[in-house]
């Protein structure tokens, strides 16, 4: 297996710069998720690693070798596409073995590897079907099988689960996780879904407007967001923000403009040592089962509070929001974290 080293990558299309001097180092065997909203450059970055595009400036190393200018097929990478990109006129078997046949491997070897991948992905009985006859989840597994067949140094995933329904997505998430543990390969995984990133990745890189906002282990990013954007992007439901000026009884740092509080850290009852965030009436209660999301309308904004479902207040009742001082994140006018 091989690590991937990106240094000072810049990519421009026409006059627009999509990636700004971006650097990222991925260890061998590591699972890194690139997350961000649409247009943040995460897919572009993946395509640069794959060799489907060339960077305008900067260097890409795979396994210590500079691969700028090296063709996609010679980089030792495999990619799973969002829409699977299976060849519609070929059977599952032909789809999976296409690369190996092109590489001129002996038929016995090709057959053995196909059988192995099919067994691993539980596709044995579908090998002679065409992609059109498969369900979404099966197509997804074929796409992964095709990628596995070449025993690549690096796996690239481009929003692989976004075309699946919610239940299947959870299943496939587990499947990808299992495969990664088993193959111990390096993975770069692009997604806009931060839950996927949190659950799968060893490290998350949050991208915004062609720059990396923060890189770190999922829980580190969650507990210690460096910018307001990262704080709001990671975590569901997303973080509440109120103005620092309106908060009484707290020693706000000098430059603090906004204060962020995660919904699960807000309480509806007062207790010693808590800070009062404000009061208002309950405008909406969403019951998710064990927990409930309570929306409380303050004067100028709404707070979302996650509470155990049993303790949720009634609609339109008055409510007060409280939290511990340690749950507060302060951000300056430019969105950077201050403390």
């Amino acid at each position: 297996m091989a690590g991937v080293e990106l240094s000072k990558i810049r990519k421009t299309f026409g006059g627009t710069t999509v990636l700004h001097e971006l650097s990222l180092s991925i260890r061998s065997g590591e699972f890194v998720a690139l997350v961000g909203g649409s247009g943040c450059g995460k897919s572009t970055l993946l395509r640069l690693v794959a060799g489907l595009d060339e960077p305008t400036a900067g260097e890409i190393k795979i396994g210590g070798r500079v691969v700028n200018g090296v063709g996609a097929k010679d980089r030792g990478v495999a990619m799973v596409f969002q829409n699977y990109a299976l060849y519609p006129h070929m059977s599952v078997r032909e789809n999976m073995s296409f690369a190996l046949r092109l590489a001129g491997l002996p038929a016995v070897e090709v057959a053995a590897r196909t059988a192995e991948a099919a067994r691993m992905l539980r596709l044995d009985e579908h090998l002679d079907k065409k992609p059109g006859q498969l369900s979404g989840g099966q197509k997804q597994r074929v796409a992964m099988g095709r990628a596995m067949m070449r025993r690549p140094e690096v796996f690239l995933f481009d929003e692989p689960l976004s075309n699946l329904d919610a239940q299947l997505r959870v299943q496939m998430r587990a499947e990808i996780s299992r495969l990664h543990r088993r193959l111990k390969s390096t993975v770069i995984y692009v997604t806009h879904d931060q839950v996927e990133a949190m659950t799968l990745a060893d490290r998350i890189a949050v991208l915004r407007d062609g720059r990396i906002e923060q890189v770190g282990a999922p829980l580190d990013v969650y507990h210690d967001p460096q910018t307001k954007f990262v704080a709001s992007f990671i975590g569901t439901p997303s973080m509440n923000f109120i103005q620092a000026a309106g908060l009484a009884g707290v020693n706000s740092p000098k430059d603090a403009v906004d204060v962020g509080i995660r919904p699960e850290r807000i309480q509806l009852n007062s207790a010693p040592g808590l800070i009062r965030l404000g009061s208002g009436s309950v405008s909406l209660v969403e019951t998710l089962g064990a927990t409930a999301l309570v929306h409380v309308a303050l004067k100028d904004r709404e707070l979302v509070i996650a509470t155990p479902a049993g303790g949720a207040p009634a609609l339109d009742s008055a409510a007060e929001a409280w939290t511990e001082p340690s749950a507060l994140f302060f951000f300056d006018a430019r969105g950077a974290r201050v403390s």
Partner: protein
Amino acid sequence: MDRGKRGRAVAACVLFLPAVLQLFPLFYLLCMSFKIGGEVMSYPPTVLPKSLNLANYRSALHSAPLWRFLLNSLFVSFAITFLQVFTAILAAFALARFDFPGKTAVFGLFIATMLVPGEVTIIPNYFTLARFGWIDSFAGLIIPWSASGFGVFLLYQFFRSVPKELEEAAALDGASRLRFLFQILVPLSLPAITAFAVYAFISAWNQYLWPLVVVQSTSMQTAQIGLGMFRSQNESMSWGVIMAATSMLIAPTVVLFVFAQKQFVRGLTMSGLKG
């Protein structure tokens, strides 16, 4: 359910009369080809022949080298079809999947060639071919028609609709661009390619003015010209024989069309020409 059935019955009835009208001229032609002597011009005119007499076919084949004409036409039409399909595949691939300067201009040029009235090109092309020494040769019949702007346009539309991820997946799988074209894009585009091939074959088979100008010797005549020649040489010949000859010369395209029309419709449907 009942209403649906009634609707379908109405549709079938609506279709019936136009279908009869549309089919009648061809049916009439076929019937005429079996009529002998005065039966063709009899009054009142009849539709059905008295018997399925093949005499007209025999005398048609005897009085002119129709077989030779047919073989010439088949060879020329297949060659033109093959060349047009092949050149259109390559050019459409370049236009749909490559970036190069002047692409819009080249594309516009292909479109513009569809608009030039055929009559305009006949005389200059005759002189060009005379310079090449291709008059009265298969090359002269085939080479000027070896590319088609319409074909390039049609396949371009189709190639563009194939997701680009397929080509990227193929590149990662180690396929060169030409291998992607011939192993993935062409098999995927077979409906459109078949549709265009049928169109090209029918157009080539039905060419009239150009073979008339280029062909001089009898042995090089194509079916269409052969029929005209056949008619003028046999003024006295009965209409029945002419109709028999016509039937034989229409048959290849009609048969081809009956078998290929489903593909033809499907190919055009999938080429982005839909609404």
